[in-house]
């Protein structure tokens, strides 16, 4: 199967999954819903509509034979991996440690050869943003190693 058909396939599976989940939602007593809709009706209607459109899309693909989409560069996969790293660092250490590490590594990954520039970007940006949000917008950040030191 050509990889262009993967998109309609994934979208169809998603739509069917939504319908299956929606069918298991609670129903409301008649006296509340009255002549209106049950909570499940609207999402199911949407997914049926979507399945029809996916059918049309597949037919268009069959007729036009579009070019398959090329695989991503390692920069893109690497950036997505850094998102995952950010999640882990934020949950287990501190949000700002996560931001620092991700900015630093992303700069290097995207081709910055001067380590000091990447380091400076990774330090100054979160620093300035923190000052702005903390002092001007009065936003409290989630507790972690650094924030525990700051908030006490």
């Amino acid at each position, binding site marked *: 199967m050509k990889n262009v058909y993967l*998109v309609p396939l994934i979208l169809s599976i998603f739509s069917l999954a*939504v319908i299956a*989940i929606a069918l298991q*939602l*609670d*129903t*409301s007593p008649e006296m*509340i*819903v*009255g*002549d*209106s*809709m*049950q*909570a*499940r009706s*609207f*999402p199911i209607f*949407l*997914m049926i*509509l*979507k399945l029809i*459109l996916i059918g*049309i*899309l597949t037919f*268009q693909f069959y007729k036009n034979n579009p070019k398959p*989409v090329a695989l*991503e*560069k390692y*920069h*893109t996969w690497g*950036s*997505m991996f850094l*998102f995952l790293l*950010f*999640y882990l660092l*934020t949950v287990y250490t501190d*949000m700002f440690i996560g*931001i620092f590490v*991700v*900015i*630093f590594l*992303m700069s290097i990954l*995207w*081709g*910055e050869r001067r380590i000091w*520039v*990447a380091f400076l*970007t*990774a330090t100054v*940006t*979160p620093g300035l*943003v*923190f000052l*702005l*949000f903390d002092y001007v*917008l009065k*936003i*409290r950040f*989630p507790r972690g190693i650094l924030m525990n030191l700051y908030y006490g």
Partner: protein
Amino acid sequence: MFEQAISAMASVVVDPYLLGLIFATTILGVIIGVLPGLGATTGAALLLPFTLTMDPVHAIAVLATIYVSATFAGSITAILINTPGTSAAAATTFDGYPLAQKGEAGRALGIAVISSTVGGIFSVIILCFAAPLLARVAYEFRSPEYFALTVFGLSMLASISAGGAVKNLIGGIFGVWLSTIGAERVTGIERFMFGNYELYEGLHFVPIFIGLFAISELLVQSKTVNKIINTVTMKAVKLPTLEDYKKIWKTILRSCGIGTFIGVLPAEGATVASMIGYSEARRWSKNKKEFGKGAIEGIAGAEAANNAATGGAMVPTMVLGIPGSGTTAIILVGLMVHGLRPGVYLFTEQVEKVYQIFGSMFVANVMFMLMGLYAAKLFARVSLVPTQILWPIVFALSVIGAYAFQGQLLDVWLALIFGVIGYFARRHGFSVAPIAVGLILGEMVETNLQHSLKMYDGAWWMILAQPLALMFLVFAFLGLCGPMIYSWITKQKD
């Protein structure tokens, strides 16, 4: 009413804080506009969290200023480096860059600045008159009319971007489905929450928009690493000469009309307007052969139209709550977050605020003209900021912005997840703007359908018996099926 409007608009000029804010935001908007990939929508999404603690008028003024100034600024890089800073400036490259290559970059920018300013100011004036009139019509709307209007808005998603009608509609439906996550509003039944009570009130727009527009753009830009940019040199920005004005004034006026009209249509935006403005400039020109080789009418046609569309797009956004593009969707979220409910209420109860916002847009147009004329060369240098520095900074602003909205880490994860979803959607030719617009309109369409069904005891066909509702549904049908019917008829004739 007229006096109230004038005094509210004038109050912008005598409010030094607001003026300073518009000035600073215009600089930021121009910088955002010249940075390839960032653009008005990403810029507005990134700035939205910063406006949360502001006064409502100031917050919307900031977002509207970003919209108009970034839309203009896209032309600077379009002319100097053949890379449109925003998609709305794509048509400007056709003649702007060739003219710059001839050594007339300053003249090209001068034409772009003046045309954009005239287009922007023209559309704000139309906005001031058209919006209250439309609001008066909308006063008559009840649930069936609002339901039909929203369906019409959703049907217009088919042409919101270049992704193709079917793909855009699939994106729009996905957006509407996202709006069903959380507790259902009438019965309180939990939908698609999977036990996560932070989702009880549904998905919030801000983190989703940051993900769809900013994070997904970051991933798209990761493919342009190491791209070599060729720049042309520019001595100074020149004001168009009298000869130039004689040549382009008709084009500018025509594009002002086209841009404003296209902008008013739900889901049509500056990009479509600039393309039509450009092609109409070419169609009416006596020097068609010059087009593509540096015709000043081409630059004027595209630039006047794309900036005129900004004011036009604010009409359905503020009056009907139906955004015409990704950027107006973010402005709409800004209005809602600050308790300014779009629609008739806004134009009857909060009319002063509305005109202050319009006044801010007017001032922003004048400010970007001055910046375009005196500092374009400086701003053009900003576009040379390396991607490996710029986009990691965008990442930091995105995650902190997503967190700042409600102080919940869940919003950060949602922004990242929707960033990845948005990226893969774009990779496969789906635009993210229909998802955003669908998410906004989703609640409106479901709630009004429920109310309509209750009104008519479940007889859904009674919606069709309401003349205005029927009109909107016919428009929606024609919008969706019109092109297909037309091509079928043409084929039959052939």
